[in-house]
């Protein structure tokens, strides 16, 4: 029912991340209309003001734009979305490398492991 | 808003009051008929060794009837007092006191409804008594015509003042009693942890003060009376009703003011 939200960071930041993920994963396609704030807030079981804050952040980043009369839409700017995807992917990779280096794998061992896994 | 309060108050209380009064009306002919049956010649046939079981129950039936008659009237009052307590002092009071209506309306609506039911219970008790005695053959329908004829013969204007005073005593007395219940709850509910006990104590204190005032007023009236010369017995009774009426009205107003003030400004539930 409600989105997975942790307790140590502001909720609106986590909502921004959740929606960003929905955008890059394709759940929201470029140009799609996004649900009204209230509806989204109820879905996420959060305060509508908090969801509004998240929307404001997303609008500022350009991922979402609002049309006075028809509501809010995902940006058509595919380059922006690709860039976002890339930066998130980079963060995942950095996180992965850090963790797997902690185990003690060398770069070659890492590559072998990845190749096996990707088959 | 007052009308709506009346409507809901009648509905809430009517449920059990009407049931009670209907029960009385139903019980009346049953006990009366049983009494009649058990004292008739038919029953004598069932006598065994000078012992007749039906006759024993005949006494019981009278007791049952009298008990039902008295309890119908007193139970009406008690149930209504409990209704005031429940709806104004217990958790139901959270709803009552947050209604967007003046506190005075709440008290007036409940008070008037209680008055109506009290009067009705007395009327029904009277009707029940008439039915009971009629079934037992104490009077017949032609007695009514004879009774009215006798009434017509009387010079009504002689009795008017007494009748009016009597009516006033009863009416204002009843209203005063009702307002006294409200005032007792209004003051007593503030006793932390024991709102009902506090109300009872408030009522006792109120009654005590009232009886002292009545005693003083009656004594003064008596003396004023003696000083100005003596009259007949009926006049005495009439005159004695006057201080009672005045006290009822004044104390009623005082109780009303206390109730509204306390429930409005010193509510503690």
């Amino acid at each position, binding site marked *: *029912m*409600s989105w997975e*939200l942790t*307790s*140590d*960071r*502001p*909720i*609106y930041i986590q909502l921004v991340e959740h929606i960003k993920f929905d955008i890059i994963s394709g759940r929201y396609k470029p140009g799609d209309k996004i649900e009204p704030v*209230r509806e989204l*807030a*109820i879905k996420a*079981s*959060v*305060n*509508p*003001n*908090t969801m509004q*804050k998240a929307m404001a952040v997303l609008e500022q980043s350009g991922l979402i734009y609002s049309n006075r009369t028809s509501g809010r839409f995902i940006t058509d700017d595919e380059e922006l979305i690709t860039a976002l995807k890339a930066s998130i992917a980079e963060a995942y990779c950095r996180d992965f490398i850090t963790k797997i280096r902690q185990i003690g794998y060398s770069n070659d061992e890492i590559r072998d492991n990845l190749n096996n896994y990707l088959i | *808003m007052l009308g*709506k309060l009346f*409507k*809901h108050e009648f509905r*809430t209380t009517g*449920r059990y009051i009407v049931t009670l009064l209907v029960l009385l009306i139903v019980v009346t002919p049953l006990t009366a008929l049983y009494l009649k049956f058990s004292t008739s010649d038919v029953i004598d046939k069932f006598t065994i060794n000078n012992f007749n079981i039906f006759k024993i129950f005949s006494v019981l039936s009278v007791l049952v009837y009298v008990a039902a008659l008295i309890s119908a009237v007193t139970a009406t009052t008690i149930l209504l007092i409990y209704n005031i307590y429940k*709806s104004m002092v217990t*958790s*139901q*009071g*959270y*709803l009552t*006191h*947050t*209604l*967007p*209506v*003046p506190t005075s309306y709440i008290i007036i609506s409940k008070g008037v409804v209680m008055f109506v039911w009290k009067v009705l219970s007395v009327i029904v008790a009277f009707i029940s008594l008439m039915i009971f005695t009629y079934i037992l053959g104490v009077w017949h329908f032609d007695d009514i015509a004879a009774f009215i004829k006798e009434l017509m013969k009387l010079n009504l204007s002689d009795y008017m003042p007494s009748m009016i005073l009597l009516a006033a005593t009863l009416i204002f007395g009843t209203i005063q009693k009702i307002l006294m219940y409200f005032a007792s709850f209004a003051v007593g509910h503030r006793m*932390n942890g024991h709102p009902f006990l506090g109300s009872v104590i408030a009522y006792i204190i109120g009654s005590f003060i009232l009886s002292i005032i009545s005693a003083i007023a009656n004594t003064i009236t008596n003396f004023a009376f003696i000083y100005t010369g003596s009259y007949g017995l009926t006049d005495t009774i009439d005159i004695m009703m006057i201080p009672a009426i005045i006290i009822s009205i004044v104390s009623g107003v005082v109780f009303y003011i206390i109730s509204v003030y306390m429930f409005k*400004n*010193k*509510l*503690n*539930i």
Partner: protein
Amino acid sequence: MTPLLECRTLTKKYGNTLALNNVSFTLERGRIVGLLGPNASGKTTLIKLINGLLTPTSGEVLINGMRPGIESKLSVAYLPDTMFLNDWMNVKQLINYYSDFYSNFDVDKAYDMLKRLNIDEKMRVKAMSKGTKEKVQLILTMSRNADLYCLDEPIGGVDPASRDYILSTILNNYNENGSILISTHLISDVEQILDDVLMIRFGCLYIHKTVDEIREEKHMSVDELFREVFRC
């Protein structure tokens, strides 16, 4: 613009016990506010004062700039934490009662919510389970189009599924012109729907911040902060 709710040095004493001590704050419209504190911290006292069920020892409470009275009773909806409904009434009669006295009562909304819970309108309060009674009380309260809703422990003693229902009902009824004040000690359940937090400690207003401020400044959730503040 008069604030929706304002408390000015609000104090309430019961004999020698100080239930609320010099509490001052304002509440704007369009907020969902948590009134948080352990039992007997003064939360219920504050809510009762807002509703005119208690009178202040000193200080004042103002709703839309007015002292509690007939007008404020129309614009404030109170959900007590106990059963307050008339036992013998059935749902239909309760709805008639509410719509009779509250001009801003939305009958359709009430029936809609009851239907979704499969509560029959002929059911008497007496015959209801505790959970159903609580839901009916909530529905009746939230069907009023009030400016301020005061919910006293709406989810205490309620199973988790009902808790979700109650919270989503609250969210569904949120409107930018009104505010909802939720008094509770079950903070982790309500934290994510709150805008602001009023933390009451021994009758004093200890913290008045937004949820985000608390998370950003203290790097912990409101629930964790509460546990820290009220550690036994």
